[in-house]
């Protein structure tokens, strides 16, 4: 048991615990803060797996941009009216069914795979090496992803423009 494997288990415990806490919170601000911890743990895990560029991007994009966007929306919309029962009884059965099937498939896949039992040796890749690999081998995918981000931007602008208008049937508005 080396220092790396101890680090992995500690990080895995932190990630799983904070994610479970985030999922089971009723207050959504607390859920988002717990999830920020989970994404920090994931970033450290990426660093442990030898991907420093991805670790930085995880902190900047996931824990920074996306979670702040969630926090912004949670604070913008008024949530007092929602008396949500945390895990409604009607949803337990489908949730348990889905989780059972998924867990079965996971166990079957992991026991069927024989190549992944040896411990991985540590390695790291330079951000510059990784960037050159990305732009030499996957330049088309980079262009497609940039188009996707542009389309998302245009779509959100269009949605935001429509949202200012009142609904056609005024009687359906609930307060």
């Amino acid at each position: 048991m080396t220092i790396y494997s101890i680090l992995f288990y500690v990080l895995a415990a932190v990630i799983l615990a904070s994610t479970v806490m985030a999922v089971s919170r009723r207050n959504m601000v607390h859920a988002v803060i717990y999830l920020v911890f989970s994404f920090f743990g994931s970033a450290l895990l990426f660093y442990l797996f030898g991907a420093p560029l991805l670790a930085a991007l995880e902190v900047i994009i996931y824990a920074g941009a996306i979670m702040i966007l969630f926090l912004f929306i949670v604070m913008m919309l008024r949530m007092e009216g929602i008396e949500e029962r945390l895990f409604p009884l009607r949803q337990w059965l489908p949730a348990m069914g889905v989780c059972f099937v998924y867990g079965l498939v996971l166990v079957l896949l992991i026991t069927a795979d024989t190549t992944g039992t040896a411990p991985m040796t540590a390695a790291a890749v330079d951000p510059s090496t990784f960037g050159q690999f990305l732009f030499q081998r996957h330049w088309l995918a980079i262009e497609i992803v940039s188009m996707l981000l542009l389309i998302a931007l245009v779509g959100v602008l269009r949605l935001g423009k429509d949202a200012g208008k009142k609904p056609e049937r005024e009687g359906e508005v609930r307060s």
Partner: protein
Amino acid sequence: MIVSYHHVLILAGLLFLTGMFCLVTRRNLIMMVLGLEIMLNASAVAFVGAALQWRHLDGQAMAIFIIAVAAAEVSIGLGLIVWIYRRTGTVDAGCIETDACRID
């Protein structure tokens, strides 16, 4: 020596399971999008572990694309949630179609 790839897969699978549980059981639309984020992050963890296991950078490239897709998805999803909130005044997935907001 780090742990074997099986343990990474188990961690990613449990994270994915947590996200899926959140997506199925919660009724708040924001919490459902949060569950989707957890699932995407779990798949990124599995890909980065695979990149180390097979000494191939394609896994890390996939993880970068997953992060970009997650950013696009969350912007569209939250834009839709704000749109739905302005039209119907609620973010509860059970009350958008029907008038009565049933709480069970």
